[in-house]
């Protein structure tokens, strides 16, 4: 059963790689083209649209500062921007963890502004709920491999893990989603 699911995932997700950019596009053009990708990735990571918007802005600000350093031979604009977005997201996770620890120590029952997650227009409430239940690492691989349709190798490079580990993480995440959805159906 599991093997079949693996095959299906590959059959569905493996598509021809997107064509690279031609002669040196401007930052504005790249930002315009890849804004949805960066935002979508950060939304899946943070589960919060307001935070995702802030982090997206921060990502593009950082990207602009480093724009001249971009080397097209080392990867696509998309992979480069997503790497920056990942770094920005991890910084936010660190700050968030510190904040939570501080609140726990001071005994303050902090009011966490848990906004209604909106992973995308048209997603069923059950799937949204199931996505929320995943860990950030699992949502990250779902976002990169399925939503943004990145190649396994590209995702592996971005996350600093092996392609096999990417596949494993993805299958585990899909398995959890499937299970959650099944539970909903039964209920």
């Amino acid at each position, binding site marked *: 059963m599991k093997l079949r*699911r693996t095959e*299906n*995932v590959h059959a*569905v*997700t493996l598509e021809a790689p997107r064509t690279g950019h031609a002669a040196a596009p*401007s*930052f*504005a053009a790249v*930002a*315009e083209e890849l*804004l*949805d990708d960066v*935002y*979508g990735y950060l*939304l*899946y990571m943070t589960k919060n*649209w307001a935070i995702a*918007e802030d982090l*997206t*802005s921060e990502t*593009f*600000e950082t990207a*602009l*500062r480093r*724009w*001249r*350093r971009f*080397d097209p031979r080392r990867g696509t604009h998309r992979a480069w921007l997503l790497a920056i977005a990942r770094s920005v997201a*991890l910084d936010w*996770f*660190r700050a968030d*963890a510190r904040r939570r620890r501080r609140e726990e120590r001071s005994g303050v029952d902090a009011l966490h502004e848990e906004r209604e997650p*909106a*992973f*995308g*227009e*048209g*997603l*069923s409430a059950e*799937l949204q709920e199931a996505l929320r239940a995943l*860990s*950030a*690492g699992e949502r*990250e691989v*779902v976002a990169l491999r*399925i*939503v943004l*349709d990145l190649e396994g190798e590209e995702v592996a490079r971005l996350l*600093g893990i092996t392609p096999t580990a990417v596949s494993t993480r993805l299958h585990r995440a*899909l398995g959890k*989603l*499937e299970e959650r*959805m*099944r539970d909903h*159906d039964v209920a």
Partner: protein
Amino acid sequence: MTSPDLIHELRESRPAAPTDLRARVREIAREESVRVPVRSRFRLPVRRGALVALPAAAALALVSAGAIGLSRSDGSETAALESNGALTLNSSRAPTAETTTQTLSGSDEKRTALDSAVGPTAGRAQRVSATLTVEVKNSDGVSRAAQEALDLTRRLGGHVVSANVVTGEEGSAALTVRVPVDRVQEAVVQLSGLGRIVSQQVKIDDLQGTLDRLDRRERSVQAQIAILVARLDSDSLDATTRARLEARLTNLRGELRTLRRGIAGTNAEARMATVQLAVVTPDSGAVAPASRLDRALEEALNVLVWEGVIVLAILIVAAPFALVAFAAWLGRRLYRRREEDRLLAT
């Protein structure tokens, strides 16, 4: 719901950036034309820089070794005669130089060049030593040349320090003689005439400075002795002072004796020149003088070896630091990875 259905739904509901975020990012992108960091235009990636720097360093090492080899093979104080008989003479002998060395290798028709260039300076104390290698046709020639050299030494008023003559198929002779310094040029010329010159070197060490210092010190000591003797002759000295002055006088007289021996020895050294003569045959394995190219290659190789030694030393010193830095980098990377995993597990 199966995985393909999930994947389909996830892809169909791909998040789109809201309009206000798009406007915000467009605003950021507008700064592109304003922010053009000049410095970053000239950035050279580390790997590409290393790819350029390493061959460049190797080429520089080779070129410098070649240049040093060529310049050294020229020899600033060496007159070298190539095997084809062409003479190059580059003497930088200055009147105040402590040591002058001149070397000549090759046939005897060029001998006069060295004869005129080398010789003790009249009126200065100098230690002169000459080394000659002459080649004769056969073993008989060796005996004859050795005998003539001994006769010549006696004629010039010198004496033999050592003589070693080997006869037979590969005959050779090694003589060390001392001749009066004012006749050393004559000795060199005549000894060079015993056969074909293979190599010839004349070395002059200036002893005048040493001799002048010894003379000055001698005069000073003599003056001090005279003063002390005069003081000791007076009756007004107490016993302690007298004893102290007498002890000092004794020391000064001892020093004067040593100084006089030194002056005499230096003068003796400057009076006689040492000539070392080697007589060889073509069969006795005398090494032909190296050509300039050979010398240049040899010098270049020496420089390369030294460069290698320096690089190796730097590597040995830097290796532990590099290892520590690598371990620190690896540890930090591992820590970051674990921290990321922990953060993303929530």
